[in-house]
């Protein structure tokens, strides 16, 4: 079974971004970039399926600037077999990414497509679902458990009310949630090996996809900042303040 995993290069989750005062956006120049944490989980799940003998090949794809190659090399070092970079400097929004991935899906015909549930920069949580719809496939989003058997994926999903288990026919799109697995650390020998694994570069034009941005960002601002309040010396004072000052409890 072939698995396709999509990964995104994003600002590292530890970085608290600075909003530019002219409203033009977030300052990410010279900021540490990493693989989106949910996408690490996606790669890890694919590698585990291969180690379990369920998958035979893992293809990892990323869409964006040339430096996405680094993200792809990390995925290869984690255990993916080959990589595809869809290279463009244009702003890519979820619908465009979904179309690019669909073109790759049409080409590679994977039985399982795994994406992270959301990218921690844009926080959209759309691409996997859109890809599934464009490809006419079933989906299982926010997966915390995944089992493949008899041409189906049985997926336990983390939903607002608890856990929901569904069975979806393959090929299908699965998006990962935090507790699906804990990604492995990349070892130096594997990083060296990854340099020899194939990495192909294509463009949106090669794939026949129009990636025009549909949503226009007019301005980006900082949210109103909360200031630290006061320290209270003990519980009694805390309760008194909540009752009489803040008036949020009776």
């Amino acid at each position: 079974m072939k698995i396709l995993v999509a990964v995104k290069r994003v600002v590292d989750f530890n970085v608290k971004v600075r909003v530019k005062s002219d409203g033009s956006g977030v300052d990410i120049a010279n900021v540490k970039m990493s693989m989106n944490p949910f996408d690490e989980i996606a790669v890890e799940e694919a590698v585990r399926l291969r180690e379990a003998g369920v998958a035979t090949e893992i293809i990892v794809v990323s869409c964006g600037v040339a430096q996405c190659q680094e993200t792809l090399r990390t995925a290869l070092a984690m255990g993916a077999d080959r990589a595809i970079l869809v290279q463009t400097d244009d702003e890519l929004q979820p619908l465009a990414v979904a179309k690019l991935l669909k073109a790759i899906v049409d080409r590679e015909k994977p039985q399982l497509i795994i994406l992270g549930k959301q990218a921690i920069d844009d926080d959209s949580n759309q691409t996997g679902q859109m890809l599934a719809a464009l490809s006419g496939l079933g989906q299982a989003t926010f997966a915390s458990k995944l089992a493949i058997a008899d041409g189906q994926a049985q997926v336990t999903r983390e939903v607002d009310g608890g856990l929901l288990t569904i069975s979806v026919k393959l090929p299908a799109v699965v998006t990962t949630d935090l507790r699906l697995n804990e990604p492995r650390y990349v070892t130096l020998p594997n990083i060296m090996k990854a340099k020899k694994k194939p990495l192909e570069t294509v463009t949106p034009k090669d794939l026949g996809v129009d990636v025009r941005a549909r949503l226009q960002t007019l301005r980006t601002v900082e949210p109103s900042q909360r200031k630290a309040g006061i320290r209270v010396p003990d519980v009694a004072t805390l309760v008194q303040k909540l009752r009489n000052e803040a008036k949020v409890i009776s």
Partner: protein
Amino acid sequence: MTALVLAEHDNQRLRPSTLSVVAAAGRLGGDVHVLVAGGNCAEVARQASQVAGVAKVLVADAPHLADGLAECVSEQVAALAGNYSHVLAAATSFGKDVLPRAAARHDCALVSDIITIESPDTFARTIYAGNAIATVRCSEPIKFATVRPTAFDAAATQGGSAPIEAVAVVPDPGLSRFVSRESAKLDRPELQGAKIVISGGRGLGSAENFKLLAQVADRLNAALGASRAAVDAGYAPNDWQVGQTGKIVAPQLYMAVGISGAIQHLAGMKDSKVIVAINKDPEAPIFQIADYGLVADLFEALPQLLKELG
């Protein structure tokens, strides 16, 4: 200009988040219709017809729609979307699962988790774990958007008397099926809309210790929340997680107990009216946004809190 709101429900009761989406839809200026897609969901349609501001309720009632499967519900939405200027759903796990499919079927972008409506085509949403707010303009022929429930006060449950109309059911595409559901029965308010939330972090140390928190929650009629660390460690179930990729809440009072205050957790609760932090580490980042900070051992503070609350 007419907006279609996708209702969220369990075939018996309309969920409160839908009321916030109806309120948001009302701000667009045109009529608001509500789509109830479910199985034996006539009661939900009736409740929806009574919501203030709803002009019409559309019902698609069939067994394959009963479990809210994304492939089925999204096809139902997509079949109707062409009649509307806006299609909205709550930014809940259901809305986020379903609406992007419908948008993609119409080759339209979707604006996720909007917190403000500036005009019928301009919306604000948070990015970078709530550290920035982007105002976006959508010029698509149909504006698909998910709405953050805490950003819009719920429409009243009474006052409306909309006609209910059955719509043609789109057949089951047969791509997935429901297997099972695990949800804890709650004797306390739901996290999403609760007025008071008490959250525990890794500092609680065990699921057993969360019961201490539960006692305080019971006394305050509060909902229980948790940090990602606590959920990962198995001290709390996943649906208690508050944060960037968990639930985003905005209660009157949020008490963070044994929670350090990582960026991702803050994203889920920093719009709370009053924030209290109890942590034995005086340097914990949570104190930077807490209105009232108590540096204390939570195992001493919690019993004291119970006593003080009476």
